């Protein structure tokens, strides 16, 4: 088996999931300059809700094809997460829009604690397995294997990202979003309903998070009420790596972080002569992140901000 190609495939799959979650962080940050700490928890909610639906359907109608069950799960999870995202923005962030920067960060932390514990009360503390409804096919490419699930994740992620770019670049809403990101005041003077635009941003980001949550649980075969924390952390790191506030940056950062992690896990033992094992893969990821930021403080694709008094 070709290790390099295998790690490349694994890294790309993982990275595309990170990228989807990172887009949610970066869109909100671009418009509000707010770290939406609860975004990882929305991803978790997406995974949990879809798993609940999928589990129930797989029991109730075992004859249904796996794809239909999965779509049903997504069809419930996406609106639930959209509603959650909108609700969180409305209740926890909008009243604090002009408050000191750290106040909404604390409410965001509060909201993520609330979501985690609601999920724990509903679904318990145990890992929830993903039912084996999806085709388990594996394909050999040049000595590496890629599963059907991995192909589906990659294709879906690319399609969603293309759709998002189209929305942001070509539609009226996208133009309003870009205008609001540049200047909320001027945008509102030009007749943009800023509140509606911000709410839409949260809704779109939450829909992406829901899809990413389903992808993660399908990929790893399980979900857990605490899964959103580390996932959100890594996705936010990815967004910062690419240059926060920049859509292309979030995609690039997500893919890079996925690749760094997977190559780090594969090669860190060889690189350090066996001194550091693969459980140091997160150290590797954070180390690269720090190194990039130290030399390029605005992130890879972020615009250099001119400092003015």
């Amino acid at each position, binding site marked *: 088996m070709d290790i390099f190609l295998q790690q490349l495939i694994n890294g790309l799959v993982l990275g595309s999931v990170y990228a989807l979650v990172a887009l949610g962080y970066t869109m909100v940050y671009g418009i509000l300059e707010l770290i939406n700490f609860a975004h990882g928890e929305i991803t978790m909610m997406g995974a949990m809700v879809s798993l609940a639906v999928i589990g129930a359907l797989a029991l109730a109608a075992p004859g249904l094809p796996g794809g239909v069950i999965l779509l049903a799960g997504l069809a419930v999870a996406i609106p639930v997460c959209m509603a959650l995202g909108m609700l969180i923005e409305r209740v926890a962030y909008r009243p604090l829009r002009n408050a000191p920067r750290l106040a909404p960060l604390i*409410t965001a932390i509060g909201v993520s604690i609330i979501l985690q514990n*609601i999920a724990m*009360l509903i679904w318990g503390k145990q890992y929830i397995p993903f039912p084996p409804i999806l085709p388990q096919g594996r394909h050999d490419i040049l000595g590496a294997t890629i599963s059907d699930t991995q192909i589906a994740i990659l294709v879906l992620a690319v399609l969603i990202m293309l759709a998002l770019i189209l929305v942001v670049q070509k539609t009226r809403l996208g133009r309003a979003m870009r205008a609001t990101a540049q200047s909320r005041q001027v945008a509102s003077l030009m007749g943009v309903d800023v509140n509606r635009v911000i709410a839409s941003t949260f809704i779109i980001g939450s829909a992406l998070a829901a899809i990413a949550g389903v992808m993660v649980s399908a990929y790893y075969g399980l979900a857990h009420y605490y899964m959103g924390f580390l996932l959100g*952390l890594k996705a936010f790191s990815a967004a*910062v790596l690419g240059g926060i506030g920049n859509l292309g940056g979030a995609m690039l950062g997500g893919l890079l972080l996925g690749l760094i992690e997977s190559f780090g896990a594969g090669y860190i033992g060889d690189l350090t002569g066996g001194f550091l094992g693969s459980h140091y893969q997160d150290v590797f990821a954070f180390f690269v992140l720090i190194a990039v*930021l*130290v030399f390029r403080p605005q992130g890879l694709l972020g615009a250099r901000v001119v400092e003015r008094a």
Partner: protein
Amino acid sequence: MLNSSLLRSRWFSFGLLALGLALLPFLIDAGLGRSWVRLLDLALLYVVLALGLNIVVGYAGLLDLGYVAFYALGAYVYAWLASPHFGLHLPFWAILPLGAALAGLFGVLLGAPTLRLRGDYLAIVTLGFGEIIRIFMNNLNAPFNLTNGPQGINLIDPVQFGGASLSQPLSVFGYTFSGAHLTYYFFLVLVMAVIFISMRLENSRIGRAWVAIREDEIAAAATGINTRNLKLLAFAMGATFGGLAGGLFASFQGFISPESFNLMESIMILCMIVLGGMGHIPGVIFGALLLTLLPEALRYTGDWQRSLFGQIYIDPADLRMLLFGIALVAVMLYRPAGLIPSARRRQEFADAKA
């Protein structure tokens, strides 16, 4: 005449406060039980931590999400030098300063490469640093056993004064003080010292320079403030307090593992200072006490449920964090500048709103 009476009344209230603080563990012991005295000890420890982070975040305005790394360093230094792990049993007065100094050194090491970063970029780098330290502590049981991995280090020596140990009851004039009470007084003295240092810093040339950097770094540099050195100093001072608290934590618990030093801990300490009122010493102290004691108090929700509905519907251990999250959001919505904000913060907030 007026002056001396003012002085007398100030000394009077000071004496009253001192008496109250001295009697507090006995009142709590009698009213709530011994476990609450230990909790009070822990709360004092968090006051030290929160005041330390307050220097970095509250005074200098540098958002540090990896603060717990310095706490961990102090704790591990104490554990290495005063436990059977390496067979060393040095006295606390030698180790505590050493751990604090090492943590301070790491504060500079972290601060130096990150000086160019602002706001959230700094937050994510410090967060990464905290995670790196935690992962190393989790895995450095091979090739040589430095941290004993996830099992952590056990049987750490308690703080000892001469023959008296803070984990053993001590009899003085026929009255027996429990270990928790003795720890309380020891921690109280240290908290007083940290409060004193914080107050003096706040009103010093350095403290004013930090406020200037926080409010406008470029303007501060233009007025001749050496922003690089002062930011490094803030990191170092905050980290030193973190290292000190870590050493105290190790001696107090007698056991440490990487589990105690995760990111959630950093976030909790940040919540303490933001919730209480950033950059304002009484606010920070209040926030630290509140956030340490509130989750424990919420364990009583089981009793409330029983008295209200006749049975327990939700396990209080599961419910308390949910209530805690709701409390965090509610406090921030109604008092976004913190529960006890400083006058200057309130002004900054009013300016931002206008």
